[in-house]
């Protein structure tokens, strides 16, 4: 029997869903599963029982808490799809809105992180899910396979003055051989999970951490990391760093 899927969006940009539909393997994926609920492409009345629920987006509204519990109840396995569902996502920048990951309210069986999840990785995750296997995430950080890897040692001698290179300073491929941290540019690679094929770094920009932490909590990892290095006065209070993809978990 084909596995039944529910694919649901909470508060999101729909970017993970549009990436899913754009995947090379999406037509084959559709053939091998039965879609029960997927409002983007299908008329569906209610969330029925399924083997797998893929949920994109964060929880920003009270009503979504009941919804996510219902999704959990009716699915054998639930997976958080994308950075918002895994960690809270971009809405974490807001002071007035909640941006909670699914795991704040339900138990999840795995996650497919990334903003959006990188296509190859996403495709492999779907193949695993259809085959009733788990999603395997790398246990390494971004630096382990970084094309700019040098002998970077995180310590207070690293002085960070920028969170991005200025446009005129962006260097590509062979032009760019030195670790961003050595150049005073904040790269979250040391605390971010490997798996995105270093797409930003190859484009001359530092890692902004969308794949999430290798372990533990997102924001506390960022705070711990930044406490090891010297951060310019201007950047110390900049929420654009601390809350870019997750709020601190103060209630848990």
């Amino acid at each position, binding site marked *: 029997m084909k596995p039944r899927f529910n694919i649901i969006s909470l508060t999101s940009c729909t970017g993970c869903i549009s990436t899913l539909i754009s995947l090379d393997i999406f037509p084959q994926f559709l053939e091998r599963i039965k879609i029960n609920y997927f409002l983007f492409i299908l008329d569906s009345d209610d969330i029925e029982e399924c083997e797998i629920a893929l949920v994109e987006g964060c929880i920003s*509204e009270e009503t979504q808490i009941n919804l996510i519990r219902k999704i959990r109840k009716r699915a054998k396995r639930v997976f958080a799809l994308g950075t918002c569902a895994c960690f809270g996502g971009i809405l974490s920048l807001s002071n007035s809105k909640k941006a909670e990951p699914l795991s704040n309210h339900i138990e999840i069986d795995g996650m497919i992180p990334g903003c959006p999840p990188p296509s190859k990785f996403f495709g492999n995750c779907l193949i695993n899910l259809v085959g009733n296997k788990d999603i395997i995430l790398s246990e390494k950080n971004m630096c382990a396979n970084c094309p700019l890897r040098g002998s970077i040692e995180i310590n207070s001698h690293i002085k960070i003055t920028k969170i991005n290179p200025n446009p005129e300073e962006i260097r*590509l491929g062979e032009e760019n051989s030195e670790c961003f941290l050595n150049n005073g540019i904040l790269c979250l690679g040391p605390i971010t999970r490997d798996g995105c094929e270093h*797409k930003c770094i190859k484009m001359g920009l530092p890692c902004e951490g969308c794949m999430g932490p290798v372990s533990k909590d997102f924001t506390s990892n960022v705070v711990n990391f930044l406490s090891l290095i010297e951060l310019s006065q201007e950047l110390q209070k900049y929420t654009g760093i601390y809350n870019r993809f997750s709020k601190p978990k103060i209630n848990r």
Partner: protein
Amino acid sequence: MQKIVNVCTRVEGHGEVKIMLQNDEVSLANFEFNVYRGFEKFLIGKRLLDIPKFVSRICGLCYASQAIASCKTLEDIYNIEISEQSIYLRRLLMTAELIKSHSMNFFFQTLPDLLKIFNISKNTLSPYELIKFNPQLTSNLYDLIKFGNEINEIFGGRSVHLISIVPGGVIYSPSGKLILLSQKYLQKALTIVEWIIEDFIKLFGNQIPPEDFNLPNTICLAKNNHGIYDRYSGSLSLKEDKNLIEFEAQNYTRYFNKEINLRGIDFFFENKKNVIVGPFSRYKIIEKYDFDKINTYLEYFNKSWTNNLLFINFLRLLEIYIESYKCIQILGEPSLNVRKYLPSFKSIKKNEGIGVIEAPRGTLIHNYHINKNNIIDEIKLFIATEFNIPLLNQMITKYAQELFDKTGDIKLVEKEVQMIIRAFDPCISCATH
């Protein structure tokens, strides 16, 4: 008064239709959203050069449009002109986004409605049934989505929230081999979309669209370049019947504006007509595309079509054709092969900037204001779907009133009004920014 709420299906994001029944009559039908994310609020105080990366996350379908409109706004504040190469690359990324967006809307969302409206299928076909209905059309549309996606991956670094779009231009890295591959993708896209256009003409060209879908008298708003189809450069135009007003984006407040934190756009027209943006307005304002072949295709559709909401489906296909063709030319430009460094963003020249482009769903305007300390203190985002909402609500109210009057079946009304909503191709993620 009785309120009936129904979740909209086959649209981007989460939207609901609310129908008000009073004395056994429909008094109002509204398309509404429950979530409001507040980008205009939480981006205040953020570093100017970070804004494009943040606003891209407003929408996973209009990501390139949002980021590019934002970059244009910053370039206005810093008075920076970007290179010809960067303009080519931005156009390319916008086209790839449009191919994906229009194809997804056509195949998954509106084609099942068209087939049902014209009695070609009895039921609304699911993606599984569409494959059986027309396997070639299905595989062609999947290919179009894939080509758009691949070009975004090659020139943007990933499928959505493109890495290469930064203030000052586009970070450029593709090799000659990847440029050739992209050309092949677009040439295939051109062949495929031509086939789909001809299939559309065969299926619907001889039909007369239902009058319920006729657009009321509206005011069209779109960007254009001296009367030529252009989603990146040019000025804005408003057109009502034959009257055309052309104006620079800086003067938009003469015609419309918005209150921050309140939803909706206020228009300052005396006649209270609603505004429409998107492929329909782009077509009405330029009157003729600069492609003989496209104008020949248009001749298959008589007046009963050209003022009908369902015609927008056809216009979307034509836009895929036009832009694929133009991007094949761009990929052959010699200036594309030179690695250029991006300009420097050293001194702020103005305390306000405006960036306008045409997103796949219509006019998109970003307007940022900065204070004495060069900190961003006001952001206004004018989103295509926000422009269209009053007209959409006007149309669904009329449709719901007439259908309920005729049938008395509210369940039917709830389902059928959604066909009008889908024909507008609303982007709820953008609208709930």
